[in-house]
């Protein structure tokens, strides 16, 4: 199936849903890694919104982007409870291990605040990270 057919299918799956924009954007992101300008126009048309409205929503939320980043993503929790457990001391090593191949993202809390430092790769979560474990995670990402 080509991209535009896939997009049409995603939009159709949410037809008739109230407030369908965020669910559609999540599905598009999952399928394509981002929400490109062309897709925004189709989504706007289908939901009877202006392209500016769709663009504004994408710009508001941290999860949505307009351009893809093919690198694997390791999201490291940098919120207070993980800071209290020493995450900041691990950041430099994680970035060194990541180099240009892996992206080290930042999240604020994964809800595992008693066992930090914590990281997320896709839907997998990892706790009790020290430098060696984090570097190994990044290397395997």
């Amino acid at each position, binding site marked *: 199936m080509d991209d535009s057919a896939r997009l049409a299918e995603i939009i159709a799956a949410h037809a008739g849903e109230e407030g369908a924009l965020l669910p559609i954007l999540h599905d598009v992101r999952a399928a394509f890694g981002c929400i490109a300008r062309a897709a925004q126009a189709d989504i706007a048309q289908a939901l009877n919104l202006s392209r500016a409205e769709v663009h504004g929503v994408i710009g508001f939320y941290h999860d949505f982007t307009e351009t893809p980043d093919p690198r694997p993503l390791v999201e490291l929790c940098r919120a207070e409870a993980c800071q209290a457990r020493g995450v900041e001391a691990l950041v430099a090593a994680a970035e060194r291990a990541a180099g240009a191949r892996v992206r080290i993202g930042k999240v604020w*809390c994964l809800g595992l605040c008693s066992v930090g430092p914590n990281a997320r790769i896709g839907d997998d979560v990892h706790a009790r990270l020290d430098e060696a474990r984090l570097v190994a995670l990044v290397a395997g990402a």
Partner: protein
Amino acid sequence: MTTVRISDDALARACGADALAQAFAVAGCTVERVSSWGMHWLEPLVEVDGLGFGPATAADVPGILAGLSDKAIGRIGEHRFLARQQRLTFARAGRTRPLSLGDYAATHGWEGLARARAIGPQAIIAEVIASGLRGRGGAGFPAGIKLRTVAEAQAPRKFVVCNADEGDSGTFADRMLMEGDPFALIEGMAIAAHAVGAEAGYVYVRSEYPHAVAKMRAACTLAAPRIAPLHIEVRVGAGAYVCGEETSLLNSLEGKRGEVRAKPPLPALAGLFGCPTVVNNVLTLAALPHILSEGGAAHYAGLGHGRSRGTMPIQLAGNIRHGGLFEVPFGITLDELVNTIGGGTASGRAVKAVQVGGPLGAYIPPSRFDLPFDYEAYAAADALIGHGGVVVFDERVDMARMARFAMEFCAAESCGKCTPCRIGSTRGVELLDRIATGAAPDALAALPQMRNAPRGLRGRADDIALLEELCETMQYGSLCALGGFTPFPVLSALRHWPQDFG
């Protein structure tokens, strides 16, 4: 064949529960995946015939099966950490399989809903008011009054919305409940919907909680016949902290930017799609089945401290030895929570500060650890209990850095609607940087258009006075608590640890 029980909660899995379960399966055991007891330093925790072993790894499997592992903690149900608690909302934690309708029904599941349907909307609301239940999302608004407002509103459509955005660092009770006892939340929503006459419900879960989303979706499908005609849909956030604010959340559900709405109108009168809407936190709604059980409201009202009735699922997090979920009646002190129950810091160093109530909560020094856990007592001490997160820091923490982080967080997460929050937070970061590095000539203040800026060099005292003034502007000039409460962590850090600032 031996049956072992291991949690499938995200935290247990992040600590290696899946590999452990696999190792037990390979050793020929039947593995039951249950909810977590909330003793996080022991995860993954293995239960064999009521006896606990943790934190366990695959290497411990033979020892555990032989009954002579050094990871043994004795009878789980009698563990000190649990013995001191009074679990009502988390009564099933560790005891049931999250998606088992059979386990749920066998542990008083659906009894609150059945009784609610029998007594009818007016009596439900009277019981919730009598229980003294207040919103667990942070603001502490009486839950029964909100239900009554929505029930009395005249409209063709009404909604029940569960706020499961749980963005506060140091909190995980919503996540544990959704992953461990999802039917309890569904039952609570069904009771609220019955009380106000709503036919549709939404659970808005943050995108950082993929496991909770999956569990809630599966549970909604399984429970659909039980709660009909109510239909519940799970919606996923998109990484914006401010979407935990109820009006921002409603905008997000409607497919808009998550900007905060001015109140009035109250969401109870004009909420989702302009219809009367109950918006409550996960823990508020999940407390309803117990309150609606026979005698539940009076029992709930009989627990607690001052005007804070019932129990609070407190979350012990950060640099603490025994972190986890601790549900007790209101009134417990920080000293008991942090030093006695929590066992002090995980690092073994002295406690320097505790932040209660998430990123907008005040930092509290050990000299104030006598403070009872109670909405009013905290407010009187310029602090808040928020969603009940307690984050412990040891002596190595630099409080000026934490103050800067509070401003940085506000700047990153501001919805942008009002100036004190959107711009003030960035000015706050700059000011705290100046305070940390010492006075250098301020390039911005020297610009010709900055006519009101004082000319000469600004000293530390001037910068601190400016910071205090900025905090006052944010506190009184912001539309919601993101801008309005960010001064709490900043000013409490400054007040109690002035030596850390420059």
